[in-house]
């Protein structure tokens, strides 16, 4: 049920992104509007992982203000976000999994390049990977190959960063993420992490 919903919404959001992209910033190529990102994701104690993803510029607005010292430009952007995180708990092997998040980021960049962003990823999933699993049905015990579970896992993010125009690593970020995994056991499980990394263009 959840997977079906995620699939439908993913296609919907992808369609929107392509259509709107064509209408507004059509003069800029897809690759120029896309930044990729890679970084650490976890909480340093229980979960540690690697995060990779991309951000596609959907809408952009410049607020230009005249000041005594010169012109001040504040940029506001809305971006489509795709992010994947592979994380584990190295000391227990009981919390390994892959998260995928799809959503929108609103970002404000001040004249000094400092960035503040809010993200919402209504489309998300978490696939756990269990090390060695035995299933018991009646008197029968069988080893399960690549055992794991898939959870619906939307998330929200608050982030800070620095724009580095013209550099190979075009920006850096630190994000604080809150997600849920549901249905897990008889309810839902909250998940907190931070991510730190760099953005770059290909």
């Amino acid at each position, binding site marked *: 049920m959840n997977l079906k919903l995620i699939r439908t919404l993913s296609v919907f959001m992808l369609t929107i992104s392509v259509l709107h992209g064509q209408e507004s910033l059509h003069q800029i190529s897809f690759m120029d509007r896309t930044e990729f990102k890679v970084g650490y994701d976890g909480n340093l104690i229980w979960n540690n992982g690697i995060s990779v993803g991309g951000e596609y510029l959907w809408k952009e607005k410049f607020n230009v203000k005249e000041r005594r010292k010169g012109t001040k430009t504040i940029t506001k952007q809305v971006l489509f976000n795709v992010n994947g995180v592979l994380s*584990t708990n190295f*000391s227990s092997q*009981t919390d390994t999994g892959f998260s995928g998040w799809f959503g929108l980021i609103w970002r404000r960049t001040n004249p000094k390049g400092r960035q503040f962003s809010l993200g919402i990823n209504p489309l998300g999933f978490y696939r*756990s990977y269990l*090390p060695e699993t035995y*299933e*018991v049905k009646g008197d029968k015990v069988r080893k399960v190959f690549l055992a794991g579970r898939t959870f619906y896992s939307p998330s929200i993010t608050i982030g800070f960063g620095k724009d580095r125009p013209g550099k190979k690593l075009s920006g850096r970020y630190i994000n604080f993420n809150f997600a849920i995994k549901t249905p897990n*056991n008889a309810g839902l*499980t909250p998940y907190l992490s931070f991510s730190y990394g760099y953005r770059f263009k290909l």
Partner: protein
Amino acid sequence: MTCRYSYSKRTVVFLFTLILCLTACSDSENLGNLDDTFFLRRANADMPVYVHGNGSEKVFLLLLHGGPGGAGLNYRAGTIKNEIEKKYAVVYYDQRGSGMSQGSYNKNGISVDIMVDDVLALVKVIKHKYGDDSRFFLMGHSWGGTLGTATLLKDQHLFKGWIEVDGAHNPSGLYYEYINLLTKTAHEQIAEGHHIEFWEKVLKDVQNVDQHKINLDDFYILNSTAHQGEVRLANDHVIYQANFDDGNAFLFKYNLITYFSNRFQTGDILSNKGMWKTLDFTSRLHEITIPSLLLWGKHDLVVPLKFGQEAFQKLGSTSKRLVVFENSAHSPMAMEGDDFAREVLQFMDAYK
């Protein structure tokens, strides 16, 4: 360009394989020094199982954690790790809806009966993994005493012996015993001049709870007061301070957000199913006939000694022993660890 791409692809495949190996290939084939982590899957739940210690004799101590909603590896410390594991294998596991277990079920997916079947399924998995000649002792602490008793009432023949440690085989009896024991202890401690302000507040709180019928909110107040009271008893040297080495390992092995989230959910579900109001196995204890060892802290305020004495009288076993730890409260394994391990090992040596 093509070359760089294929190099990256190889690197990604290599890294992915490395991660899988790091997380999956750590099983020890050496029975003398087991260090295994695997999952038990049953009835829509995946429960982590951690097997440590000396399995050369294929004698396994299956440890049921407290809670409900506790965590198996909470107990892998002190003399359980340093003494008992030296001689026998200890099986710690996170029960359904506890610790790092995961799954997908509704509130009907958690009950004492279902959790009993999980324990019995775990025995099957261990036999499958380590051999049909494996032998088992069952140990339950606190809520683990509830689950362990229920397990034995369903199938005790799988086990060589039962070790109940401050166990709640009569959860619905706790409420009124809290009222009696907390009142008695508060008067004693005030007379001794120990933490007078705290114990006077305990007296007031106890007077304010419903004295005639079990009220769940009041139960939680009493249970919390019992835990706080044990801390005051330790501060006043009435009991020993808990000394559980490697306690910090818990911090790294469990995602505490997941742990507490599971604990609240599972505790809440079992409470709402009447665990603290109606569940009582006392009248069926005579059906348990396997050798039994009852280990109790004399000053246990959480599951008072009265229940240990009651179990000793009513168990149907011809071989049974009650050991009272004079300087302990709810967790003698953490307060008088050496004596605790000695008793457990003697019992296992005798009946394996």
